């Protein structure tokens, strides 16, 4: 589904290289966890996959469902099924959450050749998903993320994911800032979305999340490279020993 080969990425503004040769292969149905120290490039990787224009790919390629992903605009990547839950979800003052979500969903549905949902159908879909992740309906009428607590913003990302029905979901530290109950709810939400035709990449700092969402693979990203890959046992090992031992272990 996703094939990253020798990916080098730098920041457009100042030319600083962040990713220095990433290789990663994700098949349908798989869950990959990416861990690694602060500043190692995890969010950069996530955002490059989503097409953020502040980064520049200098080498390598990304294939998504066999196509060159780098040729697609951010909106077309989203419409083709890539969803990124941001580490820092953005506020859009004055625009109701429901309005935003409905516009997103319909943009994606149009692209897929599906009929747009009207207000009624959208509302019942949104209600169903909200119930599922135990989110109060009042959040539909509030402006997108404005005044939401840190955890509420994260939960809102999961709501969007559940409604937009992606093929490849990338969750960038969606577990950070969640209380224990919320973490469980979000994890349940994510687990329910696991499907043989859907892949997920979870960026996280905490092994705890991986108790709830058991990954097929764990990768350690450090200094812009994947320095170690393994199964869920790797996360446990990291928890015990920290990242120091992975260094030099390429």
């Amino acid at each position, binding site marked *: 589904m996703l094939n990253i080969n020798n990916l080098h990425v730098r920041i457009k503004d100042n030319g600083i290289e962040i990713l220095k040769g990433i290789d990663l292969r994700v098949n349908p149905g798989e869950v990959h966890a990416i861990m690694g120290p602060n500043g190692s490039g995890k969010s950069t990787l996530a*955002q490059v996959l*989503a*097409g*953020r*224009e*502040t980064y520049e790919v200098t080498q390598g390629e990304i294939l998504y469902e066999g196509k060159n992903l780098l040729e697609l*605009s*951010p*909106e077309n*990547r*989203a*419409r083709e099924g890539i*969803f*990124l839950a*941001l580490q820092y*979800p*953005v*506020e*859009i*003052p*004055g*625009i109701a959450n429901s309005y*935003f*979500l409905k*516009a*997103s*969903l319909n*943009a*994606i549905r149009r*692209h897929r050749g599906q009929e747009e949902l009207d207000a009624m159908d959208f509302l019942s879909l949104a209600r169903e998903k909200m119930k599922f992740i135990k989110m109060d309906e009042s959040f539909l009428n509030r*402006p997108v993320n404005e005044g939401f607590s840190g955890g509420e913003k994260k939960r809102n990302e999961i709501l*969007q994911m559940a409604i*937009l029905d992606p093929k490849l979901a990338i969750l960038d530290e969606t577990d950070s800032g969640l209380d224990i109950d919320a973490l469980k709810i979000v994890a349940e939400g994510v687990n329910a979305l696991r499907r043989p035709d859907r892949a997920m990449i979870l960026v996280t700092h905490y092994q705890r999340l991986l108790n709830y969402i058991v990954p097929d693979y764990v990768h350690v990203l450090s200094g812009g490279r994947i320095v170690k890959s393994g199964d869920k046992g790797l996360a446990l090992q990291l928890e015990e020993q920290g990242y120091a031992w992975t260094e030099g272990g390429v």
Partner: protein
Amino acid sequence: MTDIAHHELEKLTDQDYKYGFTSDIDADQAPPGLSEDIIRLISEKKKEPKFMLEWRLKAYRHWGTMKEPTWSHVHYPPIDYQSITYYSAPRKKKEGPGSLDAIDPEVRATFEKLGISIDEQKRLSGIAVDAVMDSVSVATTFQKELAKKGIIFCSFSEAVQNHPDLVKRYLGTVVPYTDNFFAALNAAVFTDGSFCYIPKRVHCPMELSTYFRINAANTGQFERTLIVAEEGGYVSYLEGCTAPRRDENQLHAAVVELIALDHARIKYSTVQNWYPGDKEGRGGIYNFVTKRGKCLGKNSKISWTQVETGSSITWKYPSCLLIGDHSVGEFYSVAVTNNYQQADTGTKMIHIGKNTKSTIVSKGISAGHAQNTYRGLVRIQKGATESRNYSRCDSLLMGDQCGAHTFPYVEVGNHSSQVEHEATTSKIGEDQLFYCKQRGLSEEDAVNMIVNGFCKEVFRELPMEFAVEAQKLLGISLEGSVG
């Protein structure tokens, strides 16, 4: 600015101003230039009573002693007042004032094309229209129906003929001809506009509106609107404007006067979409307007809402004089400038009565090389005890060639009053755009959404149909102009 945004911006600026067409209309025109003779001619053509002519001449003489103001943050080459045509009226096919049948079919078609039907039967929603082209009102709808409730809604010319006492009593009482350069010019040469009178305790059952259209070349449009709401009266009034696309600038200098007596409420909404000029800054309307409302009575309320997307230069400060105790003034504004447009707009809230309240919400959006200035004055006079003002001015910048400026002046003359002012300037966020696009929205839709969210507090003050119109306009004015 991203490459895509650049591209979008190009696309936008190449986009057509939808209302830029010209109509071939047989018009009765005065020769260009301004003199006492021209003023006499205008007054004569309009068969005005003597007091009007005298008032005009006094205004003209006063204007001669004034200098064009230079304090605003706008720049334009000197205007040659002698090259402007001050009177241009579409000829009627038949005589007879107010008759909807007498209208030149070409005039009717022009308004149809603008989405304004002057055919009463065809109007779906309850909106009465006064349609003004160039110097004169060509039609006013629903007059008879409104008259049943005692409401007078007609062109200014008709009001001068049929209700001279009311005109004499109120004309110039809110904006005297001595007020400023353009108000003096307007008083001297104004040719038409709308008049509206709401009797005691009458709640006007439909929205009243005036649609201003400039058609003839090299003319100026100078109209006056006068609205009086008697004790307990209520009216919601809308104003829309468009003009053909031309390389020369055209001057529009209007005056609006509102008077609210005890417990009366006037809601005045404008969607201003004069031709803004092309992307090099050629052409466009100079929109130099004086709008002011007097809350004369206790508990009266005047509320201005404006969405300014057009004109090459906008210079206007809809204001409220809060004279009656407990009176309320409001100003909600969205001003959008793109390419080389300039806007210097804001409000004045003058608190005179006790316990008076005012609210100012201004949203300025600039893109391209445009300059957008908020200029506001809140003055709480000594006797206006226990008064309150809340002001909020937000500016949104798209790109780094444009500018936003805020000049809030505050004077508080007593200790029991409170003034609160908030101001923000932000760039349209790359992170917001990315977020929207990551959710599948196009760049255009994303910008639209962010900007509409930014303007929300103002749009919700507009009557429904206008709010929809305003949102669309904003989209057209700004699509893709991101940086």
